[in-house]
Structure formats: C-alpha cells, structure tokens
C-alpha cells in the first residue's frame, strides 16, 4: 500500500531504502569485494598502561599468506605526523602526541601495536598470534581521582599530567545573590557511567591505492565522507583530490563513525605500500574494547531554591573522563555549560569543568553527546521536589520559560524562542493522568508493589534559534546539488551520510513536493566524496533542518532554472511557465507541453539556449539554517520495581515531542523510539566496566555489555506538537538524538519515585538490579 498523498511532506511515505535492505541487497562496507583484496588484523595491547620493550615480528612475517607486517615505527615513516582528527574535536584543548600504531608505550587495552596484512582474515589473525611483544607494565590510571593525583604516571609524557583541562569558573547572572536569597540549598553529587555506541555494524574500511594514478579509493563505514578524506589525505600526505571516499549502507553509528580512525590510516598506508586493496573489518571484541566509549562524567551540584520551588541558581562542577586518546571529551563540557539551564528560567549559574586522561578507550560522541546537562538538571528538579515535598511536575511548570512570558533567553545567552516545554509537560501529565496514577500507586504500595512515575523535559539545539545570524551553526551552511537528468528525473546530491536516518526518503519527499514530480522520480545520492558537495556529513541532529532546508531551496532553484530554460525554448516569460506532472507548458496553452526529459535533452542540444543556460540542467544551493529553532519535548515513564529481585519493568512510556513540522511521521517516531530504547538500556543494562586495579576491560562481549531486546522495551506512545514556525519555509527540526537525551532522566526519576518509601535518592544513572537492592537497603552499598 503505497501512500498516496497530496503532499509527500508530512506523510509516512514508505522508505526508498527498504527494497534493498529487506532483500539482503544492501551494500555495507563488509560486502565490498575488490580484486586482489588483502585482509588486515591488528595485534593489540593486552594491558592498559605499559612501555613496549621489544617487538618481534619475524615468525609472523613468515607465516602462511602473510604479505605485510608493520610495527608502529615502520608505519610512521610513511605518514605525516600530526594530531589528525583529534585536533578537530578537541575544542581547543591540548592534543597530546601519539602515533597511529602505538610506539614506545600502550595506553589502553586494545591499543593497536602491529598491523598484519594477509590473504585472508583467518591467516592474518593466525599471524597476529605469532607476534611477540614485551611490555613493562606501568600503574593503570583508571579513575578521575587517580588521574588528579600528581603522583600518577603521566599517560602522555608531553602533557606532563593526567589533568588535561581545568577550566576557569564561568559565571552567568548573580550567583552569590541567588544563593544568599535562597530558602534552601539542595546538593547532590551525580554520576553518569561509561556507555558505548555499539552500532550493530562495527567499524570497517577497504582502502585501495592505485599506483598508476596515485589515487587512493576508500570504502568506509562513516557518517561523513569528507572528514574521512581530510583525515586520510592529511595523514598520508596526499592531496585531498587524490583521495576518494565512498560509503554505502551503514549499519548504525550513533556518533562513533566520525572521520578516519587510526586503523583506517594504517590500512590506507598499507594499501599504498602494497599497491593492493586492504580491508579491515573490526570485530565486536575490538569494537567494545577499543573503538570508543561515552558519557562518563560526574557532577557536584548545588541548587539555590525557594520554599515555593523556584530555582534561583545552580553551581556546577563537572569532571569528564576522556579516556586514553583524544576523542570529543574536551569539546563537550562547554556545550554542557551552555545547555544546562535548558528550557528553565534559572537566573544564575556558575560552571567549571575538569577533563582528565585515563587508561580507558577514548571518549567519543554518542547520540546527544552533551546529554548530561539534561540528566543532571532533570535529576536535580526531582531531588528539589523531594526536599520540598512537591510534585516534580509542579517544580518544572513553575520554572520553565513559557512562550508568553519573559525571560526568553537562557542565563547562558541562548534564545528560548519557540520553546514548548510547558505544552509538552502538560501533554504528558494529562496522558498519564497524574492524580489517578497517585491513587493507583498508593493502593499498590499497600500490597507491596512499588510503582513509580517519572517525567523529564529537554530542549535540543537542532539547530536552535539562529536569531537572524544564519551561518548554519558550528558546522556551517549545508550545500546541495540537484540535476535534472535526461530521463526527466531529479538527482539530488547531499553531503549527508545517512546510517539509518532514511534521508534517501525524506529529502526526496521535500524535493518532490517543491519541484512537483512524483517521489519515485527523485533519486538521492550520498556517499561519494567526488560527487556530493563538501560537508560535515550526518551528525548533531542537523539533517532535518539543514539538509531538509537545502533540499527545499535546491528544488526551488532547480524549478526556477527549468522555468528559465522553458521560457527561452517557448519564447514566453518565465512567470508564464507552469511545471506540473513531469512536464512544462506555457500557462493556458496545454499544447505547448514539453516533458522534463525533453527539456533536459534540449538544454544539451547545441545552439538552443544561451551559453549561461546550455548544458546540464543543474543547480547548487546552500542553506544556512534560516531561523532555526529548538527541538524538544517531555517524556514520562511508569515503572514497577520488584523489591525482592531489584528488577525494573517499564510499564508505560509516554512522549510529547516537538520537532517542528514532521517530514515523515513514521521516520520521526522510529528515531524517537530508537533513542528511548537506548536510554532505557543505558539505565537498566549497559555499562562499560573496567577493573580499576589492572585496567582490564570487563565488558568486551554482548554477554557483558548487555543491550536491550524486544522483551525490555515497551510500546512507546508518542504525541507530536508541531508548533511555532519560526522560518518562512523550513521548520523541520532534528529529532535523532532527543530520545537518548531524555530517556535516562525520565527513567531514573520514575525509579526514584517508585522507591520513595525507602527514602532512596538516585545519584547515578546506571540502575541494574544490584544497585536497586542497594538503594532500598536490602544489600550493603558496594
């Protein structure tokens, strides 16, 4: 049942990605087969922190099928030294010196030490077994406390210390005054545990260097082909135009697959050295141990509040554990700082942060990387409500900025124009029917059943109000190119690199509506650095606004171009040309109709058009985000906690979200549900655990790093609030990250509510059964 709609935009059009995905004919990086292709495997460090005292690869080099064995020092000779992609996401913090394969020392379990390239992955792994590496172990630095100890051995000698950044104290508003005026100060130390992105497809790359042309072609599972190109061309000392990066279908990422990793650089160098294609597919052990981890942050918070529940100010100290190698850990705290007031009228804030280096996998971006601001704030609201004996939603409604009343700006400066926190809170409160839930809860408690209700609210800058400044935010404007092909179809080239977000459907919906052709006639091309416009790729929930907007403006520009061409061909004014149903005609003269295919061919026939219009019918457009706007919403969870076993069951989950105008409701809902599921998993199941003595990683399989299944995730009820257009045309806003940002506090709040008869205060985000039993005092805290 294909959806027939007046307009595609706003309809749950079936995805154009699905025919290939559902028949097993998608093309993921692991499916790429090139003639003469070799297979890479890495010898990785079995210890967290050590000096390398000896490497012997002689036996490995002689092993069957082995073509190349490279140590870090050998590899380095073919590379241009430098921080690579690390500097791009450091936020200006110092970037330590390190090599692509470890040299001198290893800094985390899984650190790549030797590259083996062989005729098959089996043979490459066999040979890895034959490489001998001697390590002289150093004490592992596994916690921020250990990293702060001046006696801890510096993980990076050039940094001199394991404290990477100690920020100045940023002060917004009259913080001292707020704390002086407060009736009470509510304090809490809050901890967020180490998560993993864990996309179902691990990282992977196939590098193919052609010695004739000097060109490197790279098939990559990535969120953006141009960042990979930049990283690889820089590391290999190749001009960017000699590097072509291709990406096909991508099996999820959630922030992990940004730019070229150290393994990718090693494979590219090996391919150049061998003049043969080299492929590396990460396995799950490597992925969980080394690829990247996220979220481990702790906070000391003090809130100045009145007895009526007004939040006058916050004092926040944040510590972030960036792991061993630079990822995104030093860029995020400033975002957390800016965002922590959320949609609330909090009048004063002081914020300082510390980033430390430890012997853990690198801190990487993960779906809503700055999400701790929401977790901390929404946790604090409930702790404040508990202290004051108020309903948490009352505290929220008392403090959120409404659309009617000032201040319309966060104390940190961002405009709150168009925020609908109050509306979404009221929507979820009415859906769950708070008074009747409280009665149900009281009744259940009499029978020894512990139900809880939690709510939370958030906003996400996707892209955030741009206040006429445009510019597309920190990642710049979004470019797009559209071409009318000679068969009359439209090809849209975008730098977005979808990995589950369905952009090949949504951009086609927008362009088809604007240009006036059936959606089947719009083809969306992604994943070729030679073909698509330069851009960041997919991330930061920016595709809906930025690339959706670019699709709209690009289709409009193409339509104008087509009319201009038609006006020459028909010798009529452009304003008299009509485009509909795949053809152009002079208004009121149906006999003049010419199909788009004919028009495209005519444009290429010599002499029919002035030089400025002749040739390919193609336009480029850029979109700067227009007026932008917030995404956001409020979620509610109802849980039942079994106080015998510590098990938490999510009975009901309710969402009121506002991402502006929906392009495709089914796709939006898929993004929301997927994010919520990750948030539920993060609280109840997932955790990256290290042995703090030895630095060994203890969560290296899916039996240890446990992901939620269909049995743990409930149906998720979603209400859409499509409010407040800010821009004349483009009011689609990003929705990819929100679920993962808001689900953890929603669930933590529900669990604390369920456990309120025990006086439990939830101060950390990971709440597996053992922690629940500790919270209720059934077992001692450990």
């Amino acid at each position, binding site marked *: *049942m294909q959806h027939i709609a007046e307009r595609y935009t706003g309809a*749950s059009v*079936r*995805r154009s*990605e*699905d*025919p290939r*995905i*559902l*028949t*097993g*004919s*998608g*093309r*993921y990086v*692991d*499916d790429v*087969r090139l003639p003469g292709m070799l297979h890479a495997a890495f010898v990785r460090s079995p210890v967290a922190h050590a000096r390398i005292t000896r490497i012997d690869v002689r036996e490995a080099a002689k092993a069957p099928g082995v073509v190349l064995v490279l140590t870090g020092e050998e590899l380095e000779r073919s590379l241009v030294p430098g921080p690579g992609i690390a500097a791009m996401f450091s936020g200006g913090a110092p970037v330590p010196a390190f090599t692509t394969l470890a040299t001198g020392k290893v800094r985390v379990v899984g650190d790549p030490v030797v590259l083996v390239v062989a005729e098959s992955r*089996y043979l490459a792994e066999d040979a890895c077994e034959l490489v001998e590496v001697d390590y002289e172990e150093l004490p592992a630095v596994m916690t921020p406390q250990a990293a702060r100890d001046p006696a801890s051995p510096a993980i990076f000698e050039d940094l001199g210390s394991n404290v990477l950044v100690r920020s100045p104290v940023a002060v917004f508003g009259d913080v001292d005054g707020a704390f002086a005026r407060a009736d009470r100060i509510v304090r809490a130390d809050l901890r967020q545990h180490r998560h993993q992105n*864990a*996309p*179902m*497809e691990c990282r992977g790359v196939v590098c193919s260097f052609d010695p004739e042309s000097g060109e490197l072609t790279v098939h990559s599972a990535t969120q953006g082909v141009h960042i990979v190109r930049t990283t690889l061309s820089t590391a290999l000392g190749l001009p960017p135009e000699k590097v072509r990066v291709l990406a096909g*279908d*991508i*099996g*999820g990422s*959630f922030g992990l697959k940004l730019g070229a990793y150290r393994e990718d650089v090693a494979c590219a160098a090996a391919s150049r050295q061998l003049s043969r294609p080299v492929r590396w597919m990460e*396995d*799950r052990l490597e992925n969980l141990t080394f690829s990247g981890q996220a979220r481990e942050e702790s906070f000391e918070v003090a809130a100045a509040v009145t007895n009526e529940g007004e939040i006058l100010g916050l004092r926040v100290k944040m510590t972030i554990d960036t792991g061993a190698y630079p990822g995104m850990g030093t860029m995020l705290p400033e975002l957390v700082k800016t965002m922590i007031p959320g949609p609330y009228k909090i009048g004063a804030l002081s914020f300082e942060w510390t980033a430390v280096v430890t012997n853990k996998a690198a801190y990487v971006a993960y779906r809503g990387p700055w999400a701790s601001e929401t977790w901390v704030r929404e946790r604090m609201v409930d702790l404040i409500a508990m202290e004051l004996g108020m309903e948490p939603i009352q505290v929220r409604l008392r403090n959120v900025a409404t659309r009617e009343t000032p201040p319309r700006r966060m104390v940190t400066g961002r405009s709150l124009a168009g925020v609908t926190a109050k509306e979404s809170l009221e929507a979820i409160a009415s859906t769950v029917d708070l008074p009747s839930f409280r009665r149900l809860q009281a009744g259940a408690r009499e029978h020894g059943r512990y139900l809880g209700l939690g709510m939370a609210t958030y906003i996400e800058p996707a892209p955030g109000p741009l206040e006429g400044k445009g510019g597309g935010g920190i990642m710049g404007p979004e470019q797009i190119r559209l071409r009318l092909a000679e068969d009359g179809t439209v090809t849209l080239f975008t730098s977005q690199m979808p*990995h*589950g*977000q*369905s952009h090949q459907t949504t951009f086609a919906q927008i362009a088809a509506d604007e240009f006036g052709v059936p959606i089947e006639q719009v083809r969306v091309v992604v994943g070729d650095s030679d073909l698509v416009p330069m851009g960041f790729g997919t991330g930061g929930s920016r595709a809906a606004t930025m690339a959706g907007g670019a699709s709209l403006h690009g289709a409009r520009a193409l339509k104008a171009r087509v009319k201009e061409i038609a006006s020459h061909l028909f010798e009529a004014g452009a304003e008299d040309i009509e485009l509909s149903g795949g053809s152009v005609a002079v208004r009121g003269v149906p006999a003049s109709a010419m199909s788009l295919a004919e028009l495209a061919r005519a444009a290429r026939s010599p002499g029919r058009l002035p030089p400025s219009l002749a040739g390919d019918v193609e336009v480029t457009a850029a979109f700067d985000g227009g007026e932008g706007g917030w995404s956001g919403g409020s979620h509610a969870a109802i849980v039942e906690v079994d106080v015998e076993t510590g098990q938490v069951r999510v009975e009901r989950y309710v969402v009121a979200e506002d991402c502006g105008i929906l392009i495709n409701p*089914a*796709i939006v*809902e*898929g993004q929301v*549900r*997927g*994010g*919520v*599921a*990750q948030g539920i998993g993060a609280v109840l199941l997932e955790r990256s655990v290290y042995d703090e003595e030895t630095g060994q990683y203890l969560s290296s*399989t*899916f*039996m240890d790093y446990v*992901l939620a*299944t*269909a*049995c743990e*995730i409930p*149906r*998720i009820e979603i209400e859409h609030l499509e409010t407040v257009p800010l821009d004349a045309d483009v009011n689609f806003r990003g929705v990819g990250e929100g679920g993962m940002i808001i689900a953890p506090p929603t669930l933590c709040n529900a669990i604390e509510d369920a456990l309120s008869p025990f006086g439990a205060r939830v101060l950390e985000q990971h709440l597996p059964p053992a922690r629940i039993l500790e919270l209720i005092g059934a077992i001692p805290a450990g």
Partner: protein
Amino acid sequence: MTCFDVELTVNGAPRRGSVEARRTLADFLREDLGLTGTHLGCEHGVCGACTVLVDGEPARSCLMLAVQARGADVRTVEGLAPDGEMNRLQEAMWDSHGFQCGFCTPGFLMQITALLAENPGPTEAEVREALSGNICRCTGYESIVNGVLLAADAAGSDE
C-alpha cells in the same frame, strides 16, 4: 590446512565448496558463495544478525561451521524474494517502517520466518519472546513487532 568438501542446498539451489574445518557457515555464505545479505554483528552468538534457516530451524551462522551444514537445506535472506518480488513479510516490514540501518534485518527476517511457519498467528507477547535473541540497536523494536503482526494478519486474511 586440510580442506573438506561441503555440498548443501542454499535457497533451493545445490552449492558446493571446499573449506577448512574452522570456516564458519557465515563466512562460507558471505565469502565463498557471495551471499552478503547475511550479516555479522558479534560473531559470538548473541546478536542474531547472522541468523539463517538450517533445515527450517533458525541457526546462528557465526557459531556454526560450514562443514556442519553438509547436506543441509539452508535459507538466507536472499531466498525470501527470489524473483525480486518481496514476500508478505518483507512487504509488511516495508509498510511498518520496520527497520532503520538494516544491519540487524536479515537475522530478524529469518527468525520471524521460522516463527510464522510454526505459529502463523502469534500474539504480541509471543512475537517479543520469539525475537528476544535478536538485537536491533536502531528501532526500539516496536516497528519490527508491528511488521510481524501485520504480516501475520495479512496471512490470516488470505486464508
């Protein structure tokens, strides 16, 4: 290393190969037969992405050796729509927006095919239980469950 001959039926066609004893069925299908529709998400038996049907029963092709499939009748995702016409389950998944990135998809489709063969009209709880060995990191499962129920409904109304 010694190689062993393997003859089996894949998606209805006889196939043969010569493999080392350690070669997994997944690698045999993907590398030797070029059937890359079957995906590898963990290679340790937890995620279910590699699920295929062996003599009608779901099996994790990452945990099974190719030599163990000698003489077996193996079905993979490529066998669901042999002529490019999607089957009822695939159509239902398309209508339900079942999947996002698609990496878990082959395993789910094969697992569900086995479920519906055994229980053509499952309840939602039965569907969730039957899918509890397959991980999807993208969807939160609801759209997949909806797809199964829709496919079962469509089958029911055909009868």
